């Protein structure tokens, strides 16, 4: 199996706190991999470390055969990694269209991708001229994902997409993520195990800053003891 992303024993500090104390993860190309774990386990920090926003002090991150740990975060992103942060980070002073256009890496990215984006999220089309903050939580989440789709990203890092959303919106989002995973590899941080298990083919469990288990989601679903022990879900 070809791995698009390999995280090798990374240690990350935020200030004096040793947050990641040895995370290993392999993300197969063309799949959805879920990072699972309890609150504060280090899932979000893992995503930020991959992207260089909180650079690792030890360990390696290899993307498509190239070591990216130590590179500047905008250089890492420019290699083709999109990020959808936990709190969406929609730019409030920018319109919906500007929120999408700012993600262009090549001139014309937005024009080229808008049909695909609006087919995934039709709501955004009618909201195009509104300021980003005039959107509901679900619409902001769609915009955050859409923004990560504007450039030609080969890997999407999506942090807690279902957080704070109504069930009907979660279903819509899951549908969209499934659709886009046909073209892009996805790493998903998801607190809601039900959502993660329905979306992802692979998983990595992180516990207190360490990766403790990884494999195929199908196997995890059968392994009630592991789910109960690390995720608190039955």
């Amino acid at each position: 199996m070809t791995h698009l992303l390999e995280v090798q024993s990374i240690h990350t500090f935020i200030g004096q706190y040793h947050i990641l104390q040895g995370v290993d993860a392999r993300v197969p190309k063309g799949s959805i991999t879920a990072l699972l774990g309890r609150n504060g386990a280090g899932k979000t920090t893992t995503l930020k470390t991959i992207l260089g926003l909180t650079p690792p002090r030890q360990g390696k991150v290899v993307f498509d055969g190239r070591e990216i740990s130590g590179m500047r975060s905008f250089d890492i992103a420019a290699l083709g990694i999109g990020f959808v942060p936990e709190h969406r980070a929609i730019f409030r002073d920018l319109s919906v269209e500007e929120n999408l256009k700012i993600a262009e890496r090549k001139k014309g990215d937005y024009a080229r991708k808008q049909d695909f984006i609006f087919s995934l999220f039709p709501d955004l089309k009618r909201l195009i001229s509104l300021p980003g903050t005039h959107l509901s939580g679900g619409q902001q989440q769609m915009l955050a994902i859409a923004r990560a789709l504007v450039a030609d990203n080969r890997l999407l890092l999506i942090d807690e997409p279902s957080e704070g959303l109504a069930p009907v919106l979660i279903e819509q989002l899951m549908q969209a993520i499934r659709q886009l995973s046909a073209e892009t590899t996805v790493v998903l941080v998801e607190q809601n195990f039900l959502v993660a298990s329905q979306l992802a083919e692979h998983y990595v469990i992180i516990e207190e800053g360490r990766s403790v288990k990884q494999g195929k989601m199908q196997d995890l679903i059968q392994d009630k003891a592991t789910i109960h022990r690390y995720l608190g879900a039955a």
Partner: protein
Amino acid sequence: MNLSVFLRKNLMLLTVLAVLAALFAAAAGGMESSDFVITLLRGLSVGSLTFLVASGFSLIFGLLDVLNLAHGTLFMIGAYIGWTVYVRPDTFVDLLTPLFLIFSGFMLGDVWAVIGTRGLFAGGTKRVLPWAGSLVSALILVGVLRNYPVSIWNPEDYAQSPVSISYLAGQGQSLLPPPAAFESISPLLALAGLVLGSLLLAFSLSLFTAGRQMLVSRLGWRSFAGFGVFLLAGLLFFVFNDALTNFLAALNTNWLFLVAVTVAVGTGVGLGALMETTLIRPLYIRPIYQLMLTIGLSAIGIEMVRAVWGRPEFTMPRPALFAGTGEGCPAASLADWWQYHCSTMILLDGRIRVYNEIFVPIVGLVVLAGVWMLLQRTRLGMVIRAGVQDREMVEALGINVRRVFTLVFALGVGLAALGGVLAAPSIGLSNMMGESFLLNALIALAIGGLTSYPGAALGSLLVGLLQQFIIKYGQIGIPIPFTDVIFKPTPPIVPASTILLMVVVLLILPNGLLGKKE
């Protein structure tokens, strides 16, 4: 948003604006219409200069969270640089070669970063090399610069001081001294020394941060292009020194003023970029140090200006377009002014200074519109607006936010320098001009909203108008109702009034008139 929602949301703001408008109307009612128009235009002039400082300050603070307390000093430096180019173009041209050659080495920043991060040096060498290299390069540069010929004034000798030179230039008696010549050092050795010193200094300084630098992904031709351009420019200025000096000296003062403005703004932009990349950037996580640094830089800047240009105040002659006093002056209309280039113009029976009260506010408006367009209509503006809110997310989109930081810092300082060079023919040059405009700008920003660009404009306008109306009422007096007393505000009330306005606005609207809740 419908009208009622808008009114409900902005009730306080609209009330404050209505009260201010009423006070303004009352102030207008208390004076002759000619006095009112002149005071209004003077207020616009001071407001425009304040805005040029405040807008740059606001942009820098909004995106970078840096309170640049050296901003006023950079405004002042813009004025002195502009004066130098305008009144002593020979000095300006003489300085170009050493400046370009000294900066050439710093253009190879990526190359030094690659060498530094590849771990070519280890152990004791790694610790000693930055210090040894810096020391040796400093010795080389100081040695060359002490002997490099620059034709310059002498602030210690009154006849050759900027005060006298400026006075003579104002009288149209500007005579440049004979060009300075190489005496104790050969030109070739001087040029080689400058390039070598620059390369060694830039490399040595980069080694101090080598361990903390991120990997540079690629080393393309761009990494060397800047070095090549600076080196070539430095050498060309050396070869064509006399020709360029003579060209500038023979230039019409209008064009020379334009060159002076361009150079002052360019210097401001360059200084801003240099300051951000070398001094501010390492301190983004230490805001208190940043504050102390900018206060220190301000003090250093003032002392440097005193050492080079001297302490006394002096004026910068106005360009010919605004200096006419002979036939047809004062102008009766703009058409007359255009024909006779009068320094003053009659408006509603009052006399206004065309440069101060017409030209400066127009430039202020053009800058306001230009920067507004930049922020609202360009990709850079979009990135700046997004970066003000969430720098990390902008970086996660693959945008080099640091470069945008440098650009914004440079733009902000460039605006301050523009304010300085525009202020020079209007209020003259003094060592403390920056401090007073910085204070005005800070008050304007507090009134308008600290990170709001329109707020900077509105606050500056209010500060300018209030000051000028208080000054005017200091002359004509305010009759106190139901008494025979006429109150004449004294000069100390001028700055106090703006502070009072700031306090009142902040008590009612803690984020300023157009500021957003943080």
